[in-house]
């Protein structure tokens, strides 16, 4: 059903911008209009998985089209979410999918379901590594802990105990640090008040070798 709508909308918006669209995106070397669903589906793909609201200008740059075209498509997508459990909204200059407010009671129930008020041992250990080695990438934390920490890091971020702190200048990987809420929970004035650890423990530098395996 929506394929119909999508195709119709694409035809109407692509007509005036055909010259701009004929070239592939300079960033990706791919012309989105040659893919099934075209620009509209491309925008949906990106918006379904990005974690932050994305400005139309940024989308336009990656898809190699004008911001106006992107805006038109985004509005069409937003309109088509009518009747669905999600909606596409522009908040603070960026676009993002949100779950619809009507269903908040169920979403809340789902979120609370199975959540515990305590941190698991794995979460505590991961948090300790972040606290003593910050700023640190997930790859390095994993190398220190010997296991994948993606899911645990999401929990710690969700709990407001750790936060992103820019990217590593060499690898481009996200860096993490502890938050002021973490200090508050531990009753510390600053991170420097953490007890000193044995000097023989390996530092982050020594783990560079391990990191190279990713």
């Amino acid at each position, binding site marked *: 059903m929506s394929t119909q709508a999508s195709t119709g909308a694409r035809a109407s918006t692509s007509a005036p911008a055909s010259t701009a669209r004929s070239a592939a995106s300079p960033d990706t070397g791919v012309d989105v209009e040659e893919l099934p669903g075209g620009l509209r589906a491309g925008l949906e793909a990106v918006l*379904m*998985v*990005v*974690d932050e609201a994305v400005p139309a200008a940024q989308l336009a740059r990656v898809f190699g089209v004008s911001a106006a075209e992107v805006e038109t498509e985004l509005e069409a997508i937003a309109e088509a979410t009518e009747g669905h459990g999600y909606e596409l909204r522009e908040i603070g200059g960026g676009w993002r999918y*949100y*779950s619809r407010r009507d269903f*908040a009671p169920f*979403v*809340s129930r789902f*979120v*609370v379901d199975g*959540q*515990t*008020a*305590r*941190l698991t041992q794995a979460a*505590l*250990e*991961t948090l*300790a*590594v972040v*606290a*003593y*080695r910050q700023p640190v990438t997930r790859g390095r934390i994993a190398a*220190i*802990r*010997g296991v994948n920490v993606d899911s645990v890091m*999401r929990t710690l*971020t*969700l*709990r407001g*105990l750790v936060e992103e702190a820019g990217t590593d200048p060499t690898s481009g990987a996200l860096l993490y640090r502890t938050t002021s809420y973490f200090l508050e*929970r*531990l*009753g*510390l004035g600053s991170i420097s*008040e*953490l*007890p000193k*650890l*044995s000097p023989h*423990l*390996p530092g982050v530098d020594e783990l560079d070798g391990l990191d190279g395996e990713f």
Partner: protein
Amino acid sequence: MSEVSAAESAKPAGEDAPAGFAVTLEHFSGPFEVLLNLIGKRELDITEIALAAVTDEFIAYIKELRTRVGNKALDETTQFLVVAATLLDLKAARLVPSGEVESEEDIALLEARDLLFARLLQYKAFKAVAAEINRRYVSEGGRYPRQVSLEPEFAALLPELVWKTGIADFAAIAEKALAPKPMPATEVGLGHLHAPAVSVREQAAVIAELLRAAFEAADGAGSSLSFAELTADADSTLMVVARFLALLEMYRDKVVDFDQADPLGDLQVRWTGDEETWSADRLQEEYDDVGPGPAEKEAAATQDEETEES
């Protein structure tokens, strides 16, 4: 039949091969991979002929490997050596004119060959499915899951965190988490050791009994038994070796005497009876570790079964 002609037609190419033989360490992924590549290069099926045909190249590869990476690769090289030893056995067996003999060695060789076949075929199968896994891994990599952070409104609903960890405890957790964690050592595979444990001391007792019986039967006249007679009931090469070692020990203890009329002739062994109280228990402990103990033997047997079933 087709394998034979393939092997023969490939022979000239094989003789030229060493000149153009290049080791690419980037692609090095173990002895089976090298062996499969060598066989594949000759367009041969995995057969005994193929294995014998690529033995020299395989040995050359190991030599090259050693010069390239030195002792660091000892760990890997040992794995190659096990395979190389089996290959050499196979090749040697093909060079010797084949008789009707069904000796211990023939049987051991057949077992080693079958094991190498089985392991090579098994490896080939996993290599094939690894390619399929890679295909899926690469193609699925283009699908990104929705994994967004919770909207603040819902995040606020999470139960307030119960935090009971004090600063000292937290530091202790950090100490533990940051301490280097060496992987526990891999258990050593004994699957390639087929020899059952043979105790020199036990074999010495067997020989002593035979020789004493002969000594007493001849009423002290010093009747001797040949080495062949002494090892007639031995059911493995290792047992023959153990009996030979036992004889040397007994000779040192001056309870036996040897007589060999001509070089490579029959070795005649005689109980001298110089020491009536001699017992096999006197033999040194140094032979006690010759073979795996009962527990290890069991482990090795289990591993063999696993390899075969897979």
